[in-house]
């Protein structure tokens, strides 16, 4: 991954990087995310406006929520006739994974105070989390400009992709020939592959996939993702700690 190169060179230089260097680092971290977001945001814009949502509201949704799966779940449930509570509850359960991500990020973002921390939290997505947690884990020295250059560019691309998708929504009559209905799955897969760094992580992913499908088939249509994630991660942790000799139950 290119990330590694940047963080290594960062940690080698003792001086803090200039603003331009920090921005460059942030933008280069966000670039792969931007390329992934644009088609998915475009798909959201198309699907939302085809359901009758005005373009401005679809775009505003991407500004406010900035959440791939959350936004797709919102429009699919709401326009299928679900009420406020069931729509919001489904979105909340899907978003519970952000708790885990935010907990992991919390010790690293202590330098951010007030509004800055609020904005950073608002902009936690699967992809930005992955990029930043990797950098922090590799010992990268926190840099506010680099952080917000990455998050701002990523969100701008998400919002603009939605806007363009919304404008095309009236032209595109069927999303299937373009494979747009596969955009979300493709994004999750592309995120999953680099996470499977060793046998235990691969096994955890396979367990999560199995539990998620099994729970869905058992009728848990909203809770399957959260339950499967927690179950598989717990099993992965127990196996890892047993292998390290720290004791499975510790």
């Amino acid at each position, binding site marked *: 991954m290119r990330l590694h190169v940047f963080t290594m060179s960062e940690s080698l230089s003792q001086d803090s990087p200039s603003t331009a260097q920090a921005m460059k680092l942030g933008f280069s971290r966000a670039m792969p995310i931007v390329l992934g977001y644009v088609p998915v945001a475009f798909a959201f814009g198309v699907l939302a406006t085809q359901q009758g*949502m005005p373009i401005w509201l679809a775009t505003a949704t991407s500004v406010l929520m900035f959440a791939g799966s959350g936004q797709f779940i919102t429009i699919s449930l709401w326009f299928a006739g679900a009420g406020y509570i069931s729509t919001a509850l489904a979105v909340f359960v899907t978003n519970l994974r952000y708790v*885990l991500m935010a907990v992991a990020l919390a010790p690293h973002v202590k330098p951010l105070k007030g509004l800055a921390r609020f904005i950073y939290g608002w902009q936690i997505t699967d992809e930005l989390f992955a990029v930043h947690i990797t950098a922090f884990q590799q010992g990268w020295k926190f840099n506010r400009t680099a952080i917000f250059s990455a998050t701002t560019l990523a969100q701008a691309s998400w919002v603009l992709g939605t806007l363009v998708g919304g404008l095309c929504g009236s032209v595109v009559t069927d999303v299937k*020939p373009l494979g747009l209905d596969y955009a979300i799955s493709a994004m999750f897969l592309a995120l999953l592959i680099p996470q499977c760094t060793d046998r235990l992580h691969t096994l955890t992913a396979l367990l999560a996939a*199995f539990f998620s499908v099994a729970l869905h088939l058992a009728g848990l249509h909203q809770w399957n993702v959260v339950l499967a994630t927690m179950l598989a*991660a717990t099993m992965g942790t127990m196996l890892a700690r047993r292998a390290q000799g720290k004791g499975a139950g510790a």
Partner: protein
Amino acid sequence: MTTATLVATMLCILLCTLVTWLPRLLPLYVFSRDLPSWLKDWLNFIPAAVMAALVAPDVFLYGGSFNPNPLDNLFLLAALAATVFGLIVRNFFATIVFAMAFVAVMRSLGLAS
């Protein structure tokens, strides 16, 4: 869209925004201290688990019912192809484009729906 529907939809979006912000923001204010090692280990496994848990039902339940036969399930076939592609190419964007293009091409050739 009528005005009443528009207002209701706007309210729904605001509500969904709130339940998106809460899980992202609360831990940043509550857990600003070092975490125990078992929790760090656990969090390390969360991303792999959550991505797999999100994608698996979309892929295996394509068409509305459980279908583990890749020759009869376009999304599963595309996932397998994209995984092989992703492991070789190791590029986030290229993997997404490949997967979507795979689905689009299979449909345009009439090999799957």
